[in-house]
């Protein structure tokens, strides 16, 4: 479970995140929806503790992520914006490197890597260098790498961005499976369809603030629009053009 309250982050004069609060419960997919530049990535970066919030608190399970960032990180699996793979390492070497950084080693690591490779259906590419991988294949490597330590919470920043239909479906299957295993899944997107297809609850962010929060049905009821896309435009429209 992830609980965020009163999060603020400023970059010089820009107030990128301006008092964001929400809860992402266990065994649920929570979507962080917002237009480009709304503060989604900055919010996620503070959640996975590579940025320090100016104000506010973050709880990852029972851990205060602001005070104990590394402990929080060991409860998190993260797919950041842009996967950042090493082109000269193989898929398996990526998984193993992150596993070792999490303190996994020996036979346990071998087994875990093999398990993830099977789970993500990447047996054929497992021992090839990632330099020539397609976007979909790179996504799989990055996801496998993020899950190597079996985290209870999974954060994904725009996971389906730029993926073709088949790869998008594969990622959706993975996200649902993670939820069904009882994990907290929080992912960000600026694509309405993505969020409506996957999310149990949605947090709409615009201009660094939470403008709406609830299940898709609740959001429809709140805004009075039937179509989720209209809901999105109604909630964020003015902020986008500000």
């Amino acid at each position, binding site marked *: 479970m992830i609980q965020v309250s009163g999060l603020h982050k400023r970059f010089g004069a820009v107030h990128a995140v301006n008092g964001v609060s929400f809860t992402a419960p266990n065994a649920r997919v929570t979507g962080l929806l917002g237009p480009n530049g709304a503060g989604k990535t900055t919010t996620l970066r503070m959640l996975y*503790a590579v940025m320090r919030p100016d104000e506010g608190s973050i709880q990852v399970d029972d851990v205060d992520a602001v005070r104990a960032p590394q402990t929080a990180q060991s409860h998190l699996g*993260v797919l950041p*914006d*842009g996967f*950042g793979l090493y*082109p000269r390492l193989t898929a398996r070497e990526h998984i193993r490197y992150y596993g070792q950084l999490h*303190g996994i080693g020996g036979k346990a690591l071998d087994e875990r890597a093999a398990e993830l490779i099977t789970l993500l259906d990447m047996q054929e590419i497992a021992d090839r260098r990632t330099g020539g991988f397609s976007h979909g294949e790179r996504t799989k490597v*990055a996801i496998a790498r993020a899950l190597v330590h079996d985290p209870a919470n999974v954060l994904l920043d725009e996971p389906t961005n730029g993926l073709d239909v088949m790869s998008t479906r594969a990622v959706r299957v993975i996200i649902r499976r993670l939820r069904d295993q009882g994990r907290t899944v929080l992912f960000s997107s600026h694509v309405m369809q993505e969020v409506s297809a996957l999310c149990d609850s949605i947090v709409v962010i615009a201009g660094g603030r939470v403008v709406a929060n609830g299940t898709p049905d609740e959001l429809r009821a709140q805004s009075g629009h039937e179509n989720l896309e209209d809901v999105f435009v109604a909630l964020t429209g003015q902020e986008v053009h500000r």
Partner: protein
Amino acid sequence: MNGARILVVMRKELRDSFRDRRALFSIFFSAIFFPIVITLMMNRVADRARDADHVVIPVVGAENAPALVNWLQQQYGVTIVPGPSDPEAAVRDKKVDVVLVIPKDFAERFKASKAAQVRVVSDSSRTVSEPVVSRVRGLVAAYGGQIGGLRLIARGVSPSIASAVQIQNIEVSSAQQRAATILNFIPLMLMIAAFSGGMQIATDSTAGERERGSLEPLLVNPVPRSIFVGGKWLAATVAAMLSVCLTTALSVAQLHLIPLEDLGIRFGLGPNEVIGMLAAILPLCPLTAAIQLYVGTYARSFKEAQSYMGVLISMLMLPALLSSLYPIADRPWMYPAPIVGQYLLLTAFLGGRSPGWLEFSLSAGSAIVISLLLVRLTTRLFQNERIIFGR
């Protein structure tokens, strides 16, 4: 746990680099390039030294002093050939190293026991022709001395009366020290190896890591930033040390193939000297790695990092350059200065002296202290959001 993870990071960086052609090039470049340069340069010098033993002297106006020319011809290794019509132009155009010109009035003045003149035409800006020119000067002076002595004896005067002061040359530098001045570029070479060996790893694992976007996911792992910096530093250090060892091994092997005896050099680079030189230069590797890591982290891009590296590598030339301009005796306080200390230790070894423990510890100790300091500063940069996410 943290120690093990430093090694995890180091192993990953090394594995990554060993698959990178640019990194391999930066490690093996000096090991391959410098022995070739040594061979070419030393062979050239050796050839020239041999040349001085066997000189061909173009003489203009040989008919004016047949006795002198005859005497020259009898000297060991001397061949007399007719000189060019325009001696000055021939020397200037590098057609010949030296021309001996005997003027028409030579015989007349010689008979009258006046100082008879000969002209040695040479170009002093050409260092390569210097051995030949000084051989010719020496020969002519020796002839003059002999004749002068004979004339004095003929007049019943001892020749030693004419030489009120006699110079006796006593060379204090050992043969190895003279060799060291020729082999002056070996310290420079080893320092370039220490610098270039880790350069690619240090840049690729900092500026490169950020540029390809792999830094952010890396930092999501629950590992202190100091572990990442430490591992990357060790990887660059290992690469630099590897480069230094390879360069040393290949250069020493190469030196044994060069006819150093022709230069009048007894150059004993035995196992002790090689170990001493490695002990002198290896502590520079962690320092160069730490400098590169800091610069690579600070630079906004890979390109920017590389241009800083170019400036840094030219700083390695400074001690060698300065010591050739201002020949300074080494003092203990100079040893802790990075690069200068290593330079002094290496020149000492090449000159056949063994520096003391104090000099070694001062130079190695300060290099390690400064590199640890730089690693800490780099760790601080790694904690800076503006550095991590670019400016």
